[in-house]
Each structure stands twice: as C-alpha cells, then as structure tokens.
C-alpha cells in the first residue's frame, strides 16, 4: 500500500487554482479525504474573503478627474512637485488614445448599493460558483436562515426556471442585511439576485446596465431587489419578472 502523501497548503492552493501539475492533481484526487476537503474548503474561504475585499476597494477609488484643476494629493511618498503635473490622466488618455479606457463615466442614476453589488458580481466567473460545493440540504438550511433575516421566504427563488441555484450568503450594505442568491445560467454565466432589507415604496421592474452587465431592479415596501449578470437584457427581464412574481410581498 502506498503511504499517504502530506500535501502542503501551497500544493492544495495550486490544485484549487488549476495550476497544479497533472501528477500532483492525480495524487490529490487519489488521496481525497474529509480532512483534505476541509483544508481545501478553508483555503477557499480565504480566497473568497480576498475577492470580496478587493471588489469593495474598487468602489473607493478616487474619481478620474480629467480637468486641468486635477491637483494630485501632496502625499507623504514624495514631494508634490515630483508627482505633480496637471491633467496627467487627461494627457495619458490623449497620448495613448484611450478615450474610453480611463475614467469611464459612472452611472450617476444607479443606486449606490446597485453599484456595489455590480462591482462585486463583475468578479464572478463560472468557476467561482462551481467551487461552492454546497449540498442541497446545506442550501436549504441556509435559505431558511436567510429567509428569517429578511422576513421573506426565499425558497421558491431557488427553483426558478432557466437558472441553477448555487448558493446564498449574507452580505451587508450600510448596516442593512443584503442577501445574495447566486445562480448559473445554462451557458455558465453567473447571475445574482441581491435583496436588501430597506423600507420604501414599491417599484416595478426596471432594467439597467452596470459594469457591462445587464441588471433589473424592483421593490416592495420592505425589500429592494436587484438582479445582475450576463449581457442578455431579454433574459434578465424574463428572470426579473419571474423572481418578482415569486418573491414580491406587500
């Protein structure tokens, strides 16, 4: 009998990232055990934390000021004169012909939490959700708990046609619970339904486009909904209408 190999965190990380050599992959798969799965789940959780944090950081980037009055911060790194120069970014845009590359105008009509959600979701790829590894029972338990947080039964949303429910998790926005239900479309496109507990007026389904993705939002008196993912506006509208019918309350 071949003795079991002790794998390092580096090897497991490379395996999880699809960067491990074939031989190592075979060894890991051959020796898969609950203990090994637990270690990989732990490492996966760390990765998820990092992605979330950097997604949030993106939204705190300063505006790209293209005006001649764009004065750089004095900063502590170097004297301002060294870093200085006016309209640097504007100059770069001209020099490199990057009219749409820098300083893409923000959608000023978008609600702030929609922008946050879109920035986070923009980082999702099919593999992100394929790695979720939630069992149906775990998902049901999680949905039950999150339904209690919102005061709304979310279980029906997991059964929507055309989308495969993968997992749900609780996030937050300005102190209010924000529930994310993540789905995969048939073509592997990640789609997220995010629900913010916030009182306000009811709103019908309205479509939008954020971070290059199609979105739709609606609301009732207690919850606000935002669906985001993919580029097919018709599919988004169809899914939004279905979610609206399943979840909308008083």
């Amino acid at each position, binding site marked *: 009998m071949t003795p079991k190999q002790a794998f390092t965190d580096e090897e497991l990380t490379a395996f999880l990232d699809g960067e491990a050599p074939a031989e190592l992959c075979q060894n890991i798969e051959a020796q898969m055990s609950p203990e090994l799965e637990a270690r990989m789940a*732990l490492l996966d959780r*760390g990765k998820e*934390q990092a992605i979330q944090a950097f997604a949030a950081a993106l939204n*705190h980037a300063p505006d790209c000021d293209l005006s001649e009055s764009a004065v*750089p911060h004095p*900063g502590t790194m*170097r004297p301002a004169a060294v870093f200085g120069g006016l309209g640097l970014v504007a100059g*770069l845009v001209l020099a*490199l012909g990057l009219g749409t*590359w820098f300083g893409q105008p923000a959608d000023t009509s978008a609600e702030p939490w929609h922008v946050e959600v879109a920035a986070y979701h923009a980082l999702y790829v099919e593999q992100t959700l394929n790695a979720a590894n939630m069992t149906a029972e775990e998902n049901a338990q999680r949905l039950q708990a999150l339904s209690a947080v919102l005061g709304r039964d979310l279980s029906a949303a997991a059964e929507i046609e055309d989308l495969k429910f993968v997992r749900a998790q609780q996030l937050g926005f300005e102190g209010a619970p924000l529930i994310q239900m993540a789905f995969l479309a048939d073509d592997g496109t990640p789609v997220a339904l995010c629900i913010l507990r916030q009182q306000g007026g009811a709103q019908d389904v309205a479509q939008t486009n954020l971070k290059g993705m199609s979105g739709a939002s609606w609301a009732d008196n207690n919850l606000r909904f935002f669906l985001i993912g993919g580029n097919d506006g018709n599919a988004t509208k169809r899914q939004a209408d279905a979610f609206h019918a399943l979840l909308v309350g008083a």
Partner: protein
Amino acid sequence: MFPRLWRYCLALTGRRDLADDLAQATCARALEKAHLFDPDTHLDRWLFRMAQRLWLNDIRAQKARPVAAETDPDEVVSLQSSTETNIFAREVFSKIETLPAPQRVAILLVYVEGYTYAEAAEAQDVPIGTIMSRLAAARRKLAEDTGGVQ
C-alpha cells in the same frame, strides 16, 4: 481602468493616500513613456508593472522608511503601522489589511485580475514558487481571521 490601477497601487502601498500618489505618478510616467507602449499588448499590465517599479524605487530612495524592500520584501508597508494616517474606510479593506504587501499583490493579480501564476511571477520578478507561497499564506491567514480554523 483608472480604478483598477488605483486598486493595484492600494495593494502595493497599503494606504489610500499613497495609492492616490502612486496612481498619479504612474500616469505621469506612462505619459513620458507613451511612445514605448505597444498597442497590441495589455495596457493594464504595462501600467501595473510601471507602478510596481515606481513604488520599489521610491522605497529604495527613502532611506528613512522603516523597512526597506531589499532587506525584507515581505514586510514592506504594513497597514498596521499606518493606522493613524490611513483614511481609507477601514471596514472595507480590513479583511486583507493585515496581509504583507507581497501577499496582497499576489491575490489581487491572480484572483481578481486573472493572472496565471507564471504571469504574476513575471510581473513581480519572483519565482512561481514564491507566488504559490504567498497565495497559500494569504488564503490561510484570511480564513483564520474569519474564524475558519479551530
């Protein structure tokens, strides 16, 4: 793209004010070197590499900086040492602020910007094994900080 450049600078420097400066400086340098840019290559990677060089040069130039890159790169700029001046919304970045800068940059490049290990290693001028170590250490540290380890 500018927000992504700024975020990369934030990962490098660990401070918002320094990220502002570094992103601005990178734009300035890119202007000077614009004639060298090959439109068939990745502009974002060109800028990231430029920002990295500027930051390392700045560290080397400032002897007063407590920790020099060439002596211990893994300790360059800890957010923990700059909490007094860090004006960044801490709750946003707190999950990764305790990581050493090289680990922050590695996870940003690979998990957020989509670099392969080889590409990240080239961008950072380190062996692939170093990228692997930084990613593994960062994953474990973040999991520990969220109560994932008994």
